């Protein structure tokens, strides 16, 4: 699956979709495929504040436990509660239904340090 244009990416395989002063965050399709069947998602509380690279949640597959790192600094304004009952949405639709949190962006300049879709794909190719 291709990585949508217009999103920003991290080398830890998170994606960021900027919507005004907010950012929707999830893990990439590549990340979910590495994890395998996702069976548990631990979400942060709304209102919690995170710095860039802080662990904001945990995604667990049958065999693996993986931190989700916050790509940027911000305050949690929304979490995807639906993942508590259907964590497999991360596998089915990593860039859509499988979103994890929405942050209120506190340091917009950090977005410039993230990867474009092309840069992320190049990073994946080098990682192979």
């Amino acid at each position: 699956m291709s990585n949508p244009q217009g999103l920003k990416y991290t080398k830890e395989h998170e994606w960021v979709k900027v919507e005004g002063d907010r950012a929707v965050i999830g893990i990439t399709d590549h990340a979910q495929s590495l994890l395998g069947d996702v069976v548990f998602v631990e979400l942060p509380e709304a209102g919690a504040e995170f710095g860039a690279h802080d662990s904001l949640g945990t995604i667990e597959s049958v065999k693996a436990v993986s931190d989700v790192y916050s790509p940027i600094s911000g305050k949690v304004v929304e979490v995807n509660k639906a993942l508590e009952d259907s964590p497999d949405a991360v596998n089915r639709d990593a860039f859509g239904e499988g979103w994890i949190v929405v942050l209120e962006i506190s340091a917009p300049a950090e977005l410039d340090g993230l990867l474009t879709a092309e840069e992320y794909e190049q990073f994946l190719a080098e990682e192979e």
Partner: protein
Amino acid sequence: MTNAALKKTPLNAQHRKLGAKMVDFGGWDMPVQYSGILEEHRAVRAKAGLFDVSHMGEVYVMGPDALRLVNKVITNDAGKLQLKQILYTPMCYEHGGVVDDLLVYKMADDHYFLVVNASNTDKDYEWLVKNAQGLDVTVENISAKTAQLALQGPKAESILGKLTDYDLASLQYYWFDSFRVDGVECLVSRTGYTGEDGFEIYLPPEFAGLLWDKILAVGQDEGILPIGLGARDTLRFEARLPLYGQELSSEITPLEAGLGIFVKLDKADFNGKEALVKQKQEGLTRRLVGFEMIERGIPRSHYPLAADGREIGWVSTGSYAPSLDKNIGLGFVSPRFAALDTEIEVVIRGKGVKAKVIKTPFYKREA
């Protein structure tokens, strides 16, 4: 990517052709999953699955003192086996800790076939040779000349039946026989590590690839899938079958692991007998229990178990259980926390998460 240093089973090319995700499993290049652990797990419970378990170790014990050696090293009693019958048993050190757990097949009065864990094969072989000193017996490691497939699930018998004239219905649980499967002479036992009905098939490595392809082909209509080590672990775990390194180790006795029925303390002298008799008399200081999460969280191997803010043990295996749709675990606790419904906590990322002790096995197939 291929790691040349890893050992390969005769089915390595098959796994790669099927697009399996390969992992280093104790030095073996093994498939952890093909289509996905959950799908594979469900296929074995509802239909059938085929496993490459050629990495397992096989050892022959032969000679006039074969039974003496076997019964000296194991805790169960091979003296009660009939020809073509199998038993499961721990093998202990003098201090009662476990060297390995294994299957013992009685091939003849003076010939036993032992099937041991892949990662323990060399250690077990050396242990057997050491214990054979002074006995009239030969110990031979035949692992490299033996491939092993496991065909498991409710459809296993009907699928295997398409490839043999042998009356499979007559082959009872924990018995074996030698017969042709798709024209190849195999040793076939009605055993497995999934909690389902099924067979384990031993054959020369050069025929393993053909038989693997054939079983998948004739089982296709019945929904057979190739199954990786990931689902093998969740399947055995739900059925509470122990895994060496987690429920068993050199530091854990079979009594602590709840395997007392495989320890025949009335048997003549065997390795570990004295220590195990003493442990039984004095009482256990820890016991393996099953538990399910009350609060949200997945227990994982080595997470601490706690009660009243104090550590009371550890998780040996924990997982999401696909057949139950629950998060469950096995763990060792002080006996006073072992009663059913006792509330305990699993320490997950530093936080106590509520669980309660429940009955095991977590999953039992309908008879």
